């Protein structure tokens, strides 16, 4: 594996010009995750719309510190989440997680992961996998928390 294969142009682009970055209001839930071994951190806000199966991610905003992999991964994730249903958002998280833990042996689902496919190479670097997952774990946590605090049948966000 070479530097270029890990640091694909698409990753560097997201890192240099992250999408959806910056914290915005209103939001339904804010979570804060850290990666104590490398000091990386993220604050993630999620704004939902609709209810039940129809719940859609209206906005994802975030701020934080981290390496190019974690920053690009979060930026790519935000692109994938905004406009998707929560269910779709969880599915893509599951798919991405599977890819990251596959030690480079798992073929990515290109349709579903879109730009996130560029991160496939990270799976071969166990020490970097947690960088790539930082934002995604925050997302999953946010969903668990917000669905825990909102009735499952779902009143619309006030």
């Amino acid at each position, binding site marked *: *594996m*070479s*530097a270029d294969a*890990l*640091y694909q142009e698409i990753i*560097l682009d997201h890192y*240099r010009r992250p999408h959806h970055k910056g914290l915005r209001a209103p939001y339904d839930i804010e979570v804060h995750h850290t990666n104590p*071994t*490398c*000091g*990386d*951190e993220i604050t993630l806000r999620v704004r939902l719309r609709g209810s039940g199966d129809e719940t859609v991610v209206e906005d994802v905003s975030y701020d934080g*510190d*981290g*390496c*190019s*992999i974690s920053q690009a991964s979060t930026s790519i994730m935000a692109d994938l989440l905004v406009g998707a249903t929560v269910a779709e958002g969880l599915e893509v998280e599951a798919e991405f997680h599977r890819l990251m833990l596959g030690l480079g042996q798992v073929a990515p689902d290109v349709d579903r992961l879109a730009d996130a496919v560029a991160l496939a190479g990270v799976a071969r*670097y166990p020490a*970097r996998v947690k*960088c790539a997952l930082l934002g995604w774990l925050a997302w999953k946590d946010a969903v668990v928390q917000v669905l825990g605090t909102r009735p499952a049948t779902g009143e619309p966000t006030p």
Partner: protein
Amino acid sequence: MTQASASPGTGGAPGYDVEAVRKDFPALDRLVHGDRPLVYLDSAATSQKPRAVLEAVEDFYLRHNANVHRGVHTLAEEATGLYEQARDSVARFINAPDRDTVVFTKNSTEAINLVAFTMMLADPPYRVGPGDEILVTEMEHHSNLVPWQLLAQRTGARLRWLGITDSGRLDLSRLDELLTPATTIVAVVHVSNILGTINPVTEIARRAHEVGALVLVDASQSAPHLPLDVSTLGADLVAFTGHKMCAPTGIGVLWGRREVLEALPPFLGGGEMIDTVTMESATYAALPHKYEAGTPPIAEAIGLGAAVTYLTGVGMPAIAAHEHQVTAYALGALAELPGLRIIGPSTPVDRGSAVSFVMDGIHPHDVGQLLDFAGVAVRVGHHCARPVCSRFGLPSTTRASFGLYTTTGEVDALVAGLRRVREVFG
């Protein structure tokens, strides 16, 4: 084994033949990422091992392997002899006046915890209890910080610390204020693994002794790099770890003044550390066995003995001079890179061979990863000294660290790698 010869080496100190030294370390021939020669700049994390050490360990397993002590059969006698000779070698290496004050542990961390735990259980004056104070520094490795935090929490003692100046030195201005009659122990790192700073431990010990405190020096980063003489250092207790000084993993040393080691109670209980045992109670063996419960790391101690013999053969003063020169060269070359900031002393004065730095706008993970693609192995993160990172407002740093086998050519490879990192990340 290599004696430092008079032929010119690749950079470094005059008369030090670093290429000859390198030939003793087979791992340095490794290629990574296909065809990249390994440039190993991570010796502060662990050193590579000379062939002499690997052979000593292998010879033990192939010919003399047995458990030590109490055996009357040939292998047991041989194994015991080799193990105890290793203790003699280590005692000579640190100029310990008394070989029985060299206790083998599994690493520095266990050595330091041994002291922290036994001070919790000791009789006065060594007992740490409520109202007592423990003095550390902000520069400690977690292994010389967390044991004292835990001791403070477990006993109600108070943990205090010396800060760090902007230039990466210990701030001694408050030392007199922080040392009080309540101070039972001062635990201080000799050479910082993250900043590279060499601390004035003899002076600190002198002042700590004036208030009656014990002094433990964490020599994990000095024993591999500088001549270490416990008879003049001033410390009561000294901890260091084999794997950073050319020895195998799984072996460390606690040296202590006899009087202190005799006064502290036993730590781990078990075989070898007893004198006699009934069901109700036991009496304990004399030093050093009192602190060596269970089957010790036998092969590892023998490996450490071979390592210090190897290091002595090359010569600790010569190693120190060589590393000093490589470090000076690196500090100079790094200073020329735009947007790179050294964390720690920026001159080679009172400085060991670990050099931490950050690059504007580029995360250490990315620096480390891209360097690795170029074959250059450095460490990134908080280097088990997170309070130091916090002190400088950083989540982490990149650290290049050198050893007796490091060449200035390798420093050049680091610098070239860092230029390429800057190209990639702009």
